[in-house]
């Protein structure tokens, strides 16, 4: 049940417990216990909402920043990653294979805010060798959700 439950709530964390129990073919108490276990094990870390901010009046700027760093003896990349992710404006930090080391996703209100973070905070860290900042111009799809289209059911109403 665990895999199927995770797949469902990753798409829709608002489905109520009764419906979850029904479609998984288990008792409600089993769902409650499983969710509690998933939270306790740190597998479910939160229940977020997909928002298409572009449709609101709220301005946001998102940047993907490639960061090359010098790994530290005994700690590898973890301590530098931690120093970066502690900033609340940093949304995500990933260790990446390939041409650079860390992928930092940063959200700010304005371009200036983002660029000052990069120049003042990020690139001044001792272990950071270089950064490359890419601003996101448009989000087409996020977390498996396509933002633009609402699809109509184009099937015939009755077919054998």
């Amino acid at each position, binding site marked *: 049940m665990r895999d199927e439950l995770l797949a*469902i709530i990753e798409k829709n964390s608002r489905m109520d417990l009764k*419906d979850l129990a029904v479609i998984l073919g288990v008792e409600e108490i089993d769902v409650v216990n499983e969710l509690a276990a998933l939270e306790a094990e740190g597998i479910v870390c939160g229940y977020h909402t997909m928002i298409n901010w572009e449709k609101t009046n709220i301005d946001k700027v998102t940047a993907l920043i490639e960061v090359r760093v010098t790994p530290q003896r005994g700690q590898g990349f973890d301590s530098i990653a931690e120093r970066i992710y502690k900033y609340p404006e940093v949304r995500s930090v990933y260790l990446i294979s390939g041409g650079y080391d860390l992928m930092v996703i940063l959200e700010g209100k304005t371009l200036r805010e983002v660029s000052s973070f990069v120049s003042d905070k990020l690139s001044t860290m001792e272990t950071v060798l270089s950064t490359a900042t890419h601003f996101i111009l448009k989000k087409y799809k996020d977390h498996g959700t396509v933002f633009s289209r609402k699809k109509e059911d184009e099937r015939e109403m009755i*077919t054998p």
Partner: protein
Amino acid sequence: MRNPLAEKVVEIKPSGIRKFFDIVSEMKDAISLGVGEPDFDTPWHIREEGIYSLERGRTFYTSNSGLKELRQEVCNYMRRSQGIDYDPLKEVLITVGGSEAIDIGLRAMINPGDEVLIPQPSYVSYEPCAILAGAKPVIINLKAENQFRLTARELEEAITDRTKILILPFPNNPTGAIMERKDLEAIAEVILKHDIFVMSDEIYAELTYKDKHVSIASLPGMRERTILINGFSKAYAMTGWRLGYACGPENILQQMTKIHQFAIMCAPTTSQYAAVDALKNGDEDVAQMRTAYNQRRRYLMNAFREMGLECFEPFGAFYVFPCIKEFGMTSDEFATRFLEEEKVAVVPGTAFGDCGEGYLRISYAYSLENLKVAIGRLEAFVTRLRSSR
């Protein structure tokens, strides 16, 4: 002027679904639980192969029996899913949907007056195709108490000296019934005893929610007397691509290929290229869709339980077949009133044979959100009917 029409064709009743379709299409705001096709889009990697094939200019006929690569993939699939070996060069034919395979399979095997056994409720085209092929259709009425499975006894009782073919439509549209190994073994014995042939329509083979589907062709002695029909419509959500196939013994397949060659030439080339990718890389997509259907199936069964509507638990396809006999109406009346009063379209069980009387086909090829709305209306309707008695 002389009558231009063939009596044989004129005498065939139009599909019961057609009449209902006409009423529904007049209604702008109706919602439907009446479709027999998946709500999912064809997985993108499959569509992309179709697009690539067009870009590369692969717009010619393929060989009559279909792309060799596709026939090979069909054989690989049959081997890995059922453990049956077919020769891709002689024992596989790619058709325009499973429907064409039903038609030409019957035409290739029927002599005038041969009897074809058709268990009902079942898909609408078996009976007309049998008649057009010159056969006498003999209906076997399946029963709810057997979960709409075909029993050896029912089969035995329907067989005469003229019986040539049994059509075996499982997993079943419209009931959602399946035949498990033990059920198949029981009827295989009867089939062998009477030396009849089987046309096994397994178009819903990938959509079962218990054990994996078992093909009757995989049982001892059955491969050489079975035409196995399958296709891409249901498993890969590819209805509009019109692509199916038949596998079976060489002597039958060669004659089917002859009809196909003269009547059709070949199945659509674009669809065939896309289908190669479906069989090569589509297992994960099928698994995901199966999981989604199963969740909806559980949702509906639970909803029927809660509103006290009798329904046997189906383990295949994407239909449930609830019983509405308690309301003292025909299926047609119930479906018509439900449509008029609640604006939800379902298909009366009688569209799939007279023994579908007292039942409705409800499709769960809809998102959970849509099902919830429609089931809410069904509950309101049922409650109103009960309180007015």
